[in-house]
């Protein structure tokens, strides 16, 4: 089974992420944790909520947390897809999930997720990372801690450095 970084540890990935194309061909399996696209969630919310195993929702660039705001309390996981690492919209989505909507479940970065972006991703509120399959996930862990100093507040501590220092 594929590995994923969750809360700083490398663990088995117990979530199956289903794409729209896959869901055109098949139903959501009865067993196991699944992540479905936002459109599928919105169309099948009631059925999905009755499922015994957990369901998470994946946001693509252009789909914002606001589109999902009312459902967040019912969700254990929101994934944010990075089709290309240079598309930075997902950073704002994660920050909004944590800071604006107070989402406390897992926020998972998926797609073109690489070592050198993990630190920023973590700061804006991601706590889980599906590192791109062709990269060494052990090595990628180093990307979580290049800096001990941060000027601005972030999803973990909204206070800028001068407020943290004097606290």
């Amino acid at each position: 089974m594929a590995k994923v970084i969750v809360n700083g540890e490398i663990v088995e990935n117990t979530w199956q992420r289903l794409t729209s194309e896959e869901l055109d061909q098949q139903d959501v399996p009865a067993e196991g944790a699944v992540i479905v696209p936002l459109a599928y969630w919105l169309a099948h919310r009631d059925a999905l909520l009755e499922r015994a195993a957990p369901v998470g929702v994946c946001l693509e660039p252009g789909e914002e947390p606001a589109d999902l705001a009312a459902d967040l309390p019912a969700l254990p996981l929101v994934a944010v897809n990075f089709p290309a690492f240079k598309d930075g919209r997902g950073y704002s989505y994660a920050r909004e999930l944590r800071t604006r909507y107070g989402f406390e479940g897992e926020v998972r970065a998926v797609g073109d997720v690489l070592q050198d972006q993990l630190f920023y991703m973590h700061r804006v509120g991601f706590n889980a990372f599906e590192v791109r399959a062709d990269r060494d996930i052990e090595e990628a862990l180093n990307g979580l801690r290049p800096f001990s100093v941060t000027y601005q507040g972030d999803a973990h501590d909204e206070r800028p450095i001068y407020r943290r220092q004097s606290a």
Partner: protein
Amino acid sequence: MYVYQDYDQRLLEERVAQYRDQTRRYLAGQLSEDEFLALRLQNGLYIQRYAPMMRISVPYGMLNSTQVRKLASITRDYDKGFCHVSTRQNIQLNWPELADTPDILAELASVQMHAIQTSGNCIRNITTDEYAGVNPREIEDPRPWCEVIRQWATFNPEFAYLPRKFKIAVNAVPDADPALIGVHDIGVQIVHDHNGETGFQVWAGGGLGRTPMTGEVIGEFVAWPDLLAYLEAILRVYNKYGNRDNKYKARIKILVKALGADKFRELAEAEFAELKGGAMTLTRDEVARIKACFVDPDYRTDVDTSALRNALDEHRAFNRWYHTNTRAHKKDGYRSVTLTLKKTGRIPGDITDEQLEDVADLADRYAFSEVRTTHQQNMVLADVAEDELYELWRQLDALGFATPNLGLITDIVSCPGGDLCALANAKSVPIAEGIQRQFDDLDFVHDLGPLDVNISGCMNACGHHHIGHIGILGVDKKGKEFYQITLGGRGDRQSRIGEKMGPSFESHEVTSVIGKIISVYLDNRLENEPFISTYERIGMDPFKEVVYG
């Protein structure tokens, strides 16, 4: 200047270690070209035509003499003995080796310098008036606010992968725009309310480049504690909704234009409402801490100005330099001195390692050890006592820094162009040199009066050609270098984009075209009327008739 705390220094050192590891992984084949590109750009490293180009950050143009000496030794040890002052007040090295770049960053970190976010799709160096803090016309010193913004922007995790680059400038002069806020992604105009409390008029959506335009006022009055929350709101709107499909439509100016200023403001204000009053709210203590780094130096109160009057009467060349290259200072008995880096035949803005050391020595002796870089690619000694001006001038003259041409036709602003830059369509340096050689009579140059000539080798507009009174843009036509000329741009009182004259010219035609433009001006000007005013009065047609007639 801003004085580093332990944490500022630790951050730089951690950055060097991070970049060293990234470079190692790239050279070992563990990072793709594309992945390393985004990382190296945010460390100021471009791959140019012949070698990497490294852009070193000079926050709002402020340097101390120790930093200038370090730049001298770096250009000597890692480059060919010269560097380039850019229109973003930064310093560029043109020939470093990629493998040396981590060492260069380590050397820079030892004097509180870096290359963070000098390139890439992130928030770039914050710029302001090169006379900030000494300009008698400013309502307050803009530099503390620049530093507040710099810290918020540095490694801001949410805004490192924006649709495109993002430039912020701060201006504190009410009736002029020395920081060019009108042509920035965000322009911050410092204002005071009726109680004298500081606030900011916030502009967004200006920019040069491919689709030049001036910005719109988005926030009419943002109270000082809310500055960062307001900027964050604008950046978040841009990060979420800026165009990512086409890099030529990706700057915030395109978004503001597409939505309209009212709709953009509505989105920004909605974000701001969420952030206002939160943990980003600036505190009086923190602003005071930063302001304390920008206190006045120990100005003398015994400056004897009678010697200056005598020297001005006796030495015509000194007199001319005084009136051209020095300007009024907020403190009686002091002037600000500009060293023009526009020697004919050299890339405008270039300076050698030895000259850097000379400038550092002069700064130590005459200007409280401080040097500034300007967006016109010159250097400034901001605080010189009037009774030392003559002595300073003699030394500057011997060093070749006293050409009295600040703001005149030969004080050309130019990018390095196709001689060095891989992006350029055309060379810019020979064009600048041609103009400087054509106008080599100082009396004539002075008679022409204020004239901004700006040259860019391509659409990216590093030479700010759109805001030159005369702008020159290198364009490529079927593999041949051509130059398009614009007139009437300005970056002085309120930024305005110049108007295209018509079909472009071959390189050998440019100097004669400039000559014709000048002749139209001379034939039409009223007494003491500068070029730009004549142009605004008579319009484009008389120029076109002579140039294309």
